[in-house]
């Protein structure tokens, strides 16, 4: 592809103006020349023909004068003897202005007399007697042609070529006159007129050039076969244009009849023609003038036009390099340029803003970044603020040098490795950089090659990973410590676990002990209650008996003092009343003991037997009634006496029921003056027996409902509650009796505990030898 030549606008404008001007002039000159040249040549040919005719005429006149002189001499010599003839000839030749020599030749060809010009050597006289009969001129003249000219006469005097003329008189004597060729040339140049551009040749009949105004063709040329001369010899139309020695000529031929010579005038044709040359010179002159004017004016004008544009270009260049920012752009006389300046200014502002933005982004990058020229030894082109902060060099110090020159490397080998690792235009690696302060920082650097206008740039981003590495180191250490500590802790935990397991076992044991103690305590409480219950009837009985004892003594005393009737009556009445009271109380005591005995037996023996639910409920209510005796709390039962028979553990069932009743009194009615506990039972649809203990107490808080059967769950911890009552009930119902125990409660409205029991309790797998203990553990 051919690269376009790039010029300055000034040169383009200059060239435009110049080319326009020059082309216009060239065109005008060319047209003028094309129009003018044929005219010039036609004029020239006309003048040439005229000049050839003139020259021919003048030549005829000149040579004709010589011919006349020769003929005159001939008449002078007529009839004169040879000795006289010589003096006549000498006198007529004289100074040789017309002839150098004249010979008088006899009809036989012998020289009779010789006349020489004064400057000829004297021994020319020796010619007398010589035979010139073979001479060309002598032979050429005859009676018909008495006078003949020869252009190439061999001089009898010198042997050289001269121009000669011969005249034969009536007696047959021939006068031969020699004219030296230089004389002829001189004459020719005289008649042709000096200074013209026309070349005149004088050619004889044989085509030999006798003389020419240039003086250089004589002897060289024979034009016999030249078309021009051929035409002239045949008296045909003379061609006006001929070729001669490779040149194109205009030619004219005129015959000089007297001499039988031809005067050939030639003048160059085309560009060689002086007229054409002159016209051409004028054309070229005006062309050059136009060119000169153009050269003077065009650059000046172009310069004036372009100056404002140059200022814009200059300003653009300054703006590109960052100088001259913010200043107004130059304005000039060309509206388009001003508009261009305005647009350029707007563009420059936009570009500047974008550049600032980019630079700001670059500088704001939180990691050190640098741009290097890969093709220029990795010279730094720009670095951002983070880079300068990290490395310590200012931008001015860094830009223009490469990292080696800045001394950023401890070893250039590392740099070479990093640069050699390029893959797909990406570079990365960990490098240690020597900061300006001498501190060595470890960076993780990432480079990306980008090609920008055939310039390969690398954008480097680096992260100072020194701190990170330290943290990693510490973490690694800490991790190591942690593992040891964890192992240590695990050991400790294992130990603690073992300890806890042991403690748990101990606690379990303690719990079992506590449960047993609780049961015993409950039994104890029961015993104490029963004892208390027994105390009243027994006391009443004792007191009644004491009262009867007193009455008896008073009766005895009365008998001694007089028995009266009244006394007897009173005694009897006291006896009846006393014995009634005593009997009643003792019966009551007996009931109590009976009940107690059954409860105690059941509860302590965990005996399995067939029984009716109502019996157990009754026994339990009877056993607990004393606890309610001095309160307004009442226990109501609604249990069918028959139909709810069980093959189960009545002791465990009683204990569970008792705990539920005591719970109702102790917790449900806490803070209440009165309350009713209802014990109801029945058979459900699934055949199981249900037993509900319902109170109308304060109920159980919802959050406690889920944990109500957990051991040690109590709201009265420290106030006498052990938190084991409901737990024991639950275990007895679930584990021993094979039933379920559920609770529902609406706070403020009381609670309802419901057992569902199978008719037959599951067989305990425990050995019957220790039923007591098995029941205890089941309860636990």
């Amino acid at each position, binding site marked *: 592809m051919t690269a376009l030549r790039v010029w300055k606008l000034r040169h383009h404008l200059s060239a435009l103006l110049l080319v326009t001007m020059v082309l216009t002039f060239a065109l005008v000159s060319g047209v003028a020349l094309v129009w003018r040249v044929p005219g010039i040549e036609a004029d020239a040919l006309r003048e040439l023909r005229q000049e050839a005719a003139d020259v021919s005429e003048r030549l005829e006149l000149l040579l004709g004068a010589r011919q006349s002189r020769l003929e005159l001499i001939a008449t002078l010599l007529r009839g004169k003897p040879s000795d006289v003839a010589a003096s006549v000839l000498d006198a007529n030749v004289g100074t040789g202005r017309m002839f150098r020599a004249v010979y008088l030749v006899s009809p036989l060809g012998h020289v009779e007399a010789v006349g020489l010009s004064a400057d000829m050597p004297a021994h020319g006289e020796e010619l007398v007697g010589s035979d010139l009969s073979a001479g060309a001129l002598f032979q050429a003249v005859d009676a018909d042609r008495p006078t003949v000219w020869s252009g190439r006469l061999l001089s*009898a005097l010198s042997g050289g*070529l001269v121009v000669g003329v011969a005249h034969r008189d009536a007696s047959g004597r021939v006068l031969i006159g020699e004219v030296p060729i230089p004389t002829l040339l001189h004459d020719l140049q005289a008649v042709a007129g000096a200074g013209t551009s026309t070349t005149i040749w004088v050619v004889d009949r044989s085509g030999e050039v006798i003389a020419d105004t240039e003086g250089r063709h004589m002897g060289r040329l024979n034009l016999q076969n030249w078309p021009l001369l051929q035409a002239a010899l045949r008296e045909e139309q003379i061609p006006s244009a001929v070729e001669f020695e490779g040149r194109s000529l205009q030619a004219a031929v005129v015959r000089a009849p007297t001499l039988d010579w031809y005067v050939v005038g030639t003048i160059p044709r085309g560009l060689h023609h002086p007229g054409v040359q002159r016209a051409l010179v004028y054309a070229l002159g005006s062309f050059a003038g136009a060119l000169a004017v153009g050269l003077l004016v065009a650059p000046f004008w172009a310069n004036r036009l372009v100056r404002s544009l140059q200022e814009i270009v200059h300003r653009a260049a300054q703006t590109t390099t960052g100088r001259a920012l913010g200043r107004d752009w130059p304005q000039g006389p060309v509206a388009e340029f001003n508009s261009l300046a305005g647009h350029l200014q707007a563009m420059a502002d936009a570009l500047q803003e974008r550049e600032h933005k980019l630079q700001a982004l670059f500088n704001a990058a939180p990691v050190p970044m640098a741009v290097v020229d890969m093709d220029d030894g990795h010279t730094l082109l720009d670095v951002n603020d983070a880079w300068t902060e990290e490395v310590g060099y200012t931008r001015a110090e860094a830009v223009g040098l490469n990292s080696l020159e800045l001394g950023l490397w401890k070893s250039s080998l590392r740099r070479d490795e990093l640069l050699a690792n390029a893959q797909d235009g990406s570079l990365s690696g960990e490098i240690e950089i020597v900061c300006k302060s001498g501190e060595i920082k470890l960076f993780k650097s990432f480079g990306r090659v980008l090609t920008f206008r055939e310039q390969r740039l690398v954008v480097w981003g680096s992260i100072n990973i020194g701190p990170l590495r330290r943290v990693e180191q510490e973490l690694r250490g800490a991790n190591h410590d942690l593992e040891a500590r964890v192992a240590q802790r695990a050991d400790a935990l294992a130990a603690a676990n073992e300890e806890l397991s042991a403690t748990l076992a101990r606690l379990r044991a303690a719990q079992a002990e506590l449960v047993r103690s609780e049961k015993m305590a409950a039994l104890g409480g029961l015993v104490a209650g029963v004892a208390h219950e027994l105390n009243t009837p027994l006391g009443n009985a004792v007191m009644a008996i004491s009262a009867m004892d007193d009455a008896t003594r008073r009766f005895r005393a009365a008998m001694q003092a007089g028995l009266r009737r009244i006394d007897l009556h009173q005694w009897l009445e006291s006896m009846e009343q006393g014995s009634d009271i005593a009997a009643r109380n003792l019966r009551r005591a007996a009931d109590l003991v009976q009940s107690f005995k059954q409860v105690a037996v059941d509860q302590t023996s965990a005996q399995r037997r067939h029984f009716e639910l109502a019996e157990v409920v009754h026994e339990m209510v009877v056993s607990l009634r004393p606890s309610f005796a001095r309160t307004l709390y009442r226990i109501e039962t609604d249990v069918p006496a028959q139909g709810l028979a069980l093959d189960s553990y009545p002791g465990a069932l009683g204990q569970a029921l008792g705990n539920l009743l005591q719970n109702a009194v102790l917790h449900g009615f806490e803070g209440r003056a009165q309350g009713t506990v209802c014990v109801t039972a029945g058979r459900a649809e699934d055949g199981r027996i249900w037993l509900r203990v319902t109170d109308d107490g304060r109920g159980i808080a919802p959050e406690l409902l889920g944990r109500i059967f957990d051991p040690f769950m109590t709201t009265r911890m420290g106030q006498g509650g052990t938190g084991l009552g409901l737990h024991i009930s639950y275990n007895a119902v679930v584990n021993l009796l094979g039933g379920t125990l559920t609770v529902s409660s609406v706070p403020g409205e009381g609670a309802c505990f419901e057992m569902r029991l199978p008719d037959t309790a599951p067989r305990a797998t425990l050995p019957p030898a220790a039923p007591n203990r098995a029941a205890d553990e089941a309860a636990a």
Partner: protein
Amino acid sequence: MTVRPASMRRRRWLAALFPAFGLALAGCGPKPPLRLGFLVDRLGVDGNFAEDARNGVVLAVEECNRSGGAAGRSLELVVRDLDRGHAREALQALHAAGVAVLIGPFGTALAAELLPVAAALGVLMLSPTATNQALVGKDDQLLRLNLTNRESAQATVRMLAAAGCERLAMARDLRNPDYAVAWSEAFQAAYGPAGGTIVTTIDFGTDPELSFEAVVQRLLAGQPQGLLFVASGADAARLAQQARKRSSSLLLAAAAWAATPALLELGGQAVEGLLLAQSHNPQDSSPRFQAFQRAFGARFDGAPGYGAAVAYDAVLVLAQALERATPGEPLKDAVLRHGPYQGLQQSIAFDRFGDASRTAHATVVRGGRFALWP
């Protein structure tokens, strides 16, 4: 990297293109003409000899070109005035005009003068007339087509001996001393053994006061049987005129130099019977020579002289050598290697020094023209 300007690349492209065009044109177009040089001594003592020789060359060149040139090359004649005293400059000017071969020079002295220049310029000189023995046997730029002086002199001696002339007076033109002295010495060397004696030797040409009449008077003082002119045709004719005025029975002879039309024109009756040996048969009736004479007459309106014939021969030799030359063969080598060549009247063969031998013809002036003698 520097970007070469487009203009330079364009110029380079054109520079590469033009030789290619040139070769193409050379391959299929006409070959450049071979320029032949000719130096004419217009105002010399030889009179119209130069014109005669020039016409012979012109005719040969024109005929050669009409028949298609020599080996496809046309011949171009460049004629220049000898401008006596500046012959070397004239040859240099011819060389500058592109002339590779000079037909000439005609004078022995001139040949000797031009040899160094021709050698320096590499211009080959084919001299139709140079005879000096000193030029013979030298490997130089001069190729001669003429007899040597010795051959010419010996032939002259044989004629004089046959005519019974034993006492001879000799006139020498010292304006051409190389020829005149060498020829006369060769003549003397042959004439003595043949029983002849040169009674007088008169040199002329250097003294303007010395007239031909005086020369002849001195020649006759020794009572010779005959006079021998070692001079040009014009001078020999005028010497003969003076001799005939004094004695009509004297035997006249001349060196081959005089065998020009000027001898006949200026000699008239005086040169009748003049003997001379020349390398040209004036009475050749062979068709080739007859055709040459006709062509010459048609072209120049006259009869060819000896100069025209030998000059014509020189061009013939050159044209034939060109036809036979192998491509790239230097012209001189071609001329030397590819002979013999057919001349107008005889076969022309060169030896390795470029010297050709010609037959010497014994001639006499009879009836105003040259004729074979006796």
